[in-house]
């Protein structure tokens, strides 16, 4: 088996490397969102108060919010806080960012999970159907429909759902109002049905097209022909020869699209007034509440980076060249 002389197999080294890079990227992103944004023209305090604020008011608030200190000092103070689990204080209501963030993140994850439970199997299945009917009518239909789905903005899909909801239930009935209590429970599936359906529609097409491309790539390889020429029946070819090699690319596709899904949540939450992190983020952006904006930005980016990292790790673990080195 794979144990080198150094006592650490190349796979482990590679995984450690990949995780290290992920951590570095998150750090770099936090620096970019904190320091880079500061270097842009414009003044947080003035933006926060609005253009009509007097210079005295601006100076006061700068002092009050600690904006008079150099940016590097503030960044490291902030980073120190984050590492001990403290995201600071909102400018708008002086409340701690932490309590809100955790609750909202959990709600967002609930919505994303419910969507993924439906989106992943459906899209991977459809991708396989498209491969099976390659260059035949069902493939063309799936191609055109998925192209259309990719081109639809989230809010169009969302409002279309709400419109039909109202059409079926009668005038004046919107989708259910979602309480901001912790949502993790089967009973709440119905509550998030519409936002989840919207997310499924907008991620489905992408995931399906990428699955199709990944499987086609494998079906075109020479070893599939070899298996066919050995007289192996088609279903066995797919099960024994194609599937083991398709796992890595499909894991990759799924993880990439989950990352996309987490970001797509922002718009969907606004449409359905869903009490998640996306809504929190957009509200903060509108009033320029920078501590909240930065905290949400880093968390979103962090989730995105971690999912991308998982995609890479999946690919590493499924690669026989790396799992069974010479």
């Amino acid at each position: 088996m794979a144990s080198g002389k150094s006592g650490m197999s190349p796979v482990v080294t590679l995984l450690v490397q990949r995780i290290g890079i992920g951590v570095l990227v998150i750090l770099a992103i936090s620096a970019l969102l904190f320091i880079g944004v500061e270097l842009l023209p414009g003044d947080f305090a003035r933006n926060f108060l609005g253009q009509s604020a007097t210079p005295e008011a601006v100076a006061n608030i700068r002092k009050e919010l600690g904006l008079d200190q150099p940016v590097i000092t503030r960044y490291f103070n902030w980073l120190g806080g984050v590492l001990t689990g403290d995201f600071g204080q909102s400018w708008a209501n002086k409340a701690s960012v932490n309590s809100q963030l955790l609750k909202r993140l959990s709600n967002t994850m609930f919505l994303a999970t419910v969507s993924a439970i439906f989106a992943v199997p459906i899209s991977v299945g459809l991708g396989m159907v498209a491969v099976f009917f390659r260059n035949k009518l069902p493939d063309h239909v799936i191609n055109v429909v998925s192209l259309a789905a990719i081109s639809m903005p989230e809010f169009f899909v969302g409002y279309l759902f709400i419109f039909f909801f109202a059409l079926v239930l009668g005038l004046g009935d919107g989708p259910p109002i979602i309480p901001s209590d912790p949502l993790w429970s089967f009973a709440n599936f119905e509550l998030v049905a519409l936002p989840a359906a919207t997310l499924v529609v907008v991620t489905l097409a992408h995931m399906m097209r990428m699955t199709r491309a990944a499987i086609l790539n494998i079906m075109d390889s020479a070893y599939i022909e070899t298996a066919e020429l050995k007289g192996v029946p088609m279903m066995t070819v797919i099960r024994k020869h194609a599937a083991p090699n398709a796992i890595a690319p499909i894991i990759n596709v799924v993880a990439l699209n989950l990352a996309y899904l987490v970001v797509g949540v922002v718009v969907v939450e606004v449409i359905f007034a869903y009490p998640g992190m996306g809504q929190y983020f957009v509200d903060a952006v509108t009033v320029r509440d920078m501590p909240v904006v930065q905290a949400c930005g880093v968390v979103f980016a962090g989730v995105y980076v971690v999912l991308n990292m998982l995609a890479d790790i999946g690919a590493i673990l499924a690669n026989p060249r790396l799992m069974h080195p010479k």
Partner: protein
Amino acid sequence: MARNLLQVRDLKIGATVYPPGEDPVDIEIVKGVSFDLEKGKVIGLIGESGAGKSTIGLAALAYGRGGVRITGGQVLLDGKDILRYTRAGIREIRGRKVCYVAQSAAAAFNPAMRLGDQVIEASVMHGVMSRTAAVERARYLFGVLGLPDPDSFGTRFPHQVSGGQLQRAMTAMALCPNPDLIIFDEPTTALDVTTQIDVLAAIKHAIEETQVAAIYITHDLAVVAQISDDIMVLRHGNTVEYGPVKQIIEDPHETYTRDLISIRSDIKPEAPDQSQSLMRLEHVDAAYGRGAPVLFDVTMHLPPGQTLAVVGESGSGKSTTARVITGLLPPVKGQVIFDGKPLPPALKDRSKDQLRELQMIYQMADVAMNPRQTVEEIIGRPLTFYFGIKGEERRRKVTDLLDLIEMGDPFADRYPAELSGGQKQRVCIARSLAAQPRLLICDEPTSALDPLVAEGILKLLMELQKETGVSYLFITHDIATVRAIADSIAVMYKGRVVRSGPKSTVLSPPFDDYTDLLLKSVPEMELGWLEKALASRRMAAAGH
């Protein structure tokens, strides 16, 4: 009369091609080919690319690659036409009665499965033998094919073994279910000569041992002569000549076959050795990036107006040597002396004249030319760039150059995609000549071409040398080419020059070990060469 194992009757195979922007066109790849194969015999199918030989081989498995389909004729296996079988019937034949060995074993093995499992898959699936029996047989075959450590070889993954071993493992996979017929589709083409001879010997031994019949497909007549009983020469989907191997090799009836056999046998007289040199490499070491060095203390010299052949297998450092000379890879140590003066090591430090005097021809002519430029633009650019020639005069000069390479003015307005392989290489030669170089570096310029086309290119190069006095640094892995055109030779192995000097000295004994191995591995157009070569090898091994 004993019924033949395989009878192919008037086989016709077609395909549909889709030229972009035009309506699809139906073309015929194989135009009515017939042959017979007895049990335990081997037939060799030979021809240049596009002759339809692989397509015929796959038809024996009732398989068409890509959009290829069989349009007529019969393929009778044990007297039954397999082209009329149902899908299930065809599956019963594939991997049980007829097996296939692909050119690129590296791509043909599933990277995620152990070799042993893939080798026995067909036998077990078709119920030819039990799993234990199949594993036992695989072990036996690994041994017959000379694979290292037959007992544990099957537990390895494809990426864990070498190319030559994979090719043998693929042969084992084909032999495992005890088939009646095996299709070998260029099984040794992708291998180096010194590896090729081992694989060839292993295949021949295995065929004799198991008494299986085979169709052996290749473009190399010398290879097929070692292994088959009959030979069919194909060209453009038609049979040129079909007969026993002895008759084809020793008494060919058709001109085309004769040309194939007599190829590169006219040896150019060797020019006298000169101490004066146009280009000299002195103690060059080179490495890519900060990696391990790939050239060690390489020294060679090339007299003006002569040809220096640099010979070696893949990974020997011959192409790296060319990159050092052209300045693409500045050496770590040592220098390149050109016309008595050292050349600046890096490309960007060389003067326009130094660049002009040193031109290059590539192996793949079709990627060496910009597909969006016409032949006139391609040949004309050096004229404009180095000499400032434009307009009418440039067109005239381009026409002259086209005449020089025996093509002529009408080609000036064509795009590379509209030329044949040989014509493309000629245009590349014309482009380099336009710069009026003193040294032309030829990096395997004929190895991607069919033998007769390659022959034409070599003759043209020799003509041009006589007319213009240009020197060639000719990089190749093909000893026959070296014999035909070189004045002096440098043999490279693992980044070092192991032997160099005038052709007559280098190619005559006493040899060093590597040159000896290399020369003995090159297949010769002679019946029984393989046995002789192997015998002499064994003797050499015993002598040590």
